[in-house]
């Protein structure tokens, strides 16, 4: 069966690839949105921390023999603790300043983190094997589904939905949303806002690290793997607007799928299509798809 001269299985497999990319966009933009909501900082280091998650997974496998499944928990934990250190040591001092300093500070951090990893591992990719359980592919009749890719999509969607649930439907999330609206009032009610801020940052970067672990077996693990990704995620954030959690998830997945389609019909544009969409959205709805007009 063919659609516009492209065979259906080929199209579906590109679509799945797009969905995989979209899962990463969703997790990363979700983390950016959560951090921005409470800290008012655009975390440029998000890409570097995503890379840290992936490289930590590789290191644990190669030096300590710790397997993939354990790292799904351990890598976010390690990077999350690193996030606590960053927040306590550096970010704490700039909340009262203009937004741009937050961006510049985290950019500096990105350069340091990537520089350190590069001085150890160079720029070439490090291979990471797909865990045994998820190797191979399943024949669905109309397409061949690589198990690992399906797992990436399912795992990220579950994590995104869980995050949405915690923030929108639980008491903890209510504190967080209140803190985003008016931190001083929340503090007056006896909530320890500084600790909440630290943990929020740690959680946001742990999400990035989780995405990094998922990415290890399919992307080349390399110190610069987060560098270009973060800019696409910025465009995703501009398109979706950072006001809504569900908005970032849907925008991320949706753009991944569109990117996948572009790869089928006009491969040359696949690396720029997200930016083109950003331009169109800015023309029609300057506040972003899910953003609120001021």
């Amino acid at each position, binding site marked *: 069966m063919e659609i516009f001269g492209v065979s259906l299985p080929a199209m579906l497999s590109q679509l799945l690839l797009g969905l995989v990319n979209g899962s990463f966009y969703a997790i990363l933009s979700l983390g950016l949105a959560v951090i921005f909501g409470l800290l008012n900082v*655009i975390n440029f280091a998000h890409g570097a921390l995503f890379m840290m998650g992936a490289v930590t997974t590789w290191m644990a496998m190669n030096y300590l023999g710790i397997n993939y499944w354990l790292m799904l928990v351990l890598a976010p934990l390690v990077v999350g603790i690193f996030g606590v250190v960053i927040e306590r040591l*550096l970010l704490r*001092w*700039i909340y009262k*300043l203009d*937004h*741009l*300093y937050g*961006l*510049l*500070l985290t*950019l*500096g*951090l*990105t*350069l*340091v*983190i*990537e*520089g*350190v990893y*590069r*001085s150890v591992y160079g720029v070439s990719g490090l291979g990471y094997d797909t865990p045994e359980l998820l190797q191979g592919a399943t024949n669905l009749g109309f397409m061949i589904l690589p198990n690992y890719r399906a797992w990436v999509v399912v795992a990220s969607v579950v994590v995104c939905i869980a995050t949405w649930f915690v923030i929108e439907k639980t008491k903890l999330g209510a504190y967080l949303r209140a803190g985003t609206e008016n931190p001083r009032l929340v503090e007056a009610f006896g909530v320890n806002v500084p600790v909440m801020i630290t943990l929020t940052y740690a959680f946001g970067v742990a999400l990035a690290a989780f995405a990094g672990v998922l990415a290890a077996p399919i992307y080349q693990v390399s110190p610069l793997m987060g560098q*270009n990704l973060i*800019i*696409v995620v*910025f*465009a995703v*954030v*501009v398109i979706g607007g950072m006001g809504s959690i569900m908005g970032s998830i849907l925008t991320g997945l949706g753009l991944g799928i569109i990117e996948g389609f572009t790869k089928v019909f006009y491969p*040359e544009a696949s*690396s*720029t299509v*997200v*930016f*083109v969409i*950003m*331009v169109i959205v*800015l023309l029609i709805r*300057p*506040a972003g798809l899910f953003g609120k007009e001021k």
Partner: protein
Amino acid sequence: MNSKNLSAIGYSLLLVGLLLAPMLGAYPVFVMKLMCFALFAAAFNLLLGYTGMLSFGHAAFLGGAAYVAGQSMKVWGFTPEVGLLLGTLSGGFLGLIVGFFAIRREGIYSTMITLALAQMLFFVCLQAPFTGGEDGLQGVPRGKLFGLISLKDDLVMYYVALAVVVAGFLVIVRTVHSPYGQVLKAIKENEQRAISLGYDTNRFKLLAFVLSAALSGLAGSLKTLILGFATLSDAHWTASGHVVLMTLVGGLGTLSGPLVGSAVVVLLENKIGDLGEFLARVSGIEWFHTLGESVTIVTGLIFVVCVLAFRRGIMGELIAWMARRRAGSAAK
């Protein structure tokens, strides 16, 4: 002595120093490269320091204009001054496009938009047939200025480049001190108030964007003319980060800041290997030997330190210090 005289003396000394630099044994090509970055940073500062908009897409103007200038001089056979002019115009044109979208949103969103659009141009440069992909555009001839003066000699090239950079810098000084520049300052301080005074702030902001981008384009085309190639790395976002750092180190919103900042950053990056060797010899720590390869780590650390403790930059601190001293002596 008042501060106006003092800065006049400072600029005169700088100009004389630059005029004499080749005689004093400075390597002309290196100084020319430095001047290009100084112009680039000064143009960038016009936007961030005087209008309050952080663009993270200036690499697109530097790199994009460099390709246009290179293509026009190499393939179309234009003379250098036409090449520079075309480069400047294309920088301004790119600035018009990027600025148009960037001012539709405010603050941090606007920054992300510039970054995303610049990244888009980077991919275009990577894939377009005439840019030479990862190798960049190589073998751009220096040609003859106005068809008469050959720029082959580094010394001739040096003085032409100096004249171009000084002219570019004077445009910036003039802009900042003009009534238009005052409106920009008002927008930076309080945009709502500027609107209530009847200024169409978006038009002013867009014009600032175009001016800044055009001058960045001039810097990029000049760099191509001097070095004979346009590289992909000039269009990468790291080049945008670079110019932010130069401006920040030198001092945001000061005229002299970007000049000082670019000199400090470029010199540091060129000499960091030597510094590492020196530190390794003194302290005996082997790791310092690798410092030369870890420029990005050092750049990143400077960023962090500047943001946390040194936001006024070198010239900003100096100016504030002089103001304090004057206030002190006036009180006596």
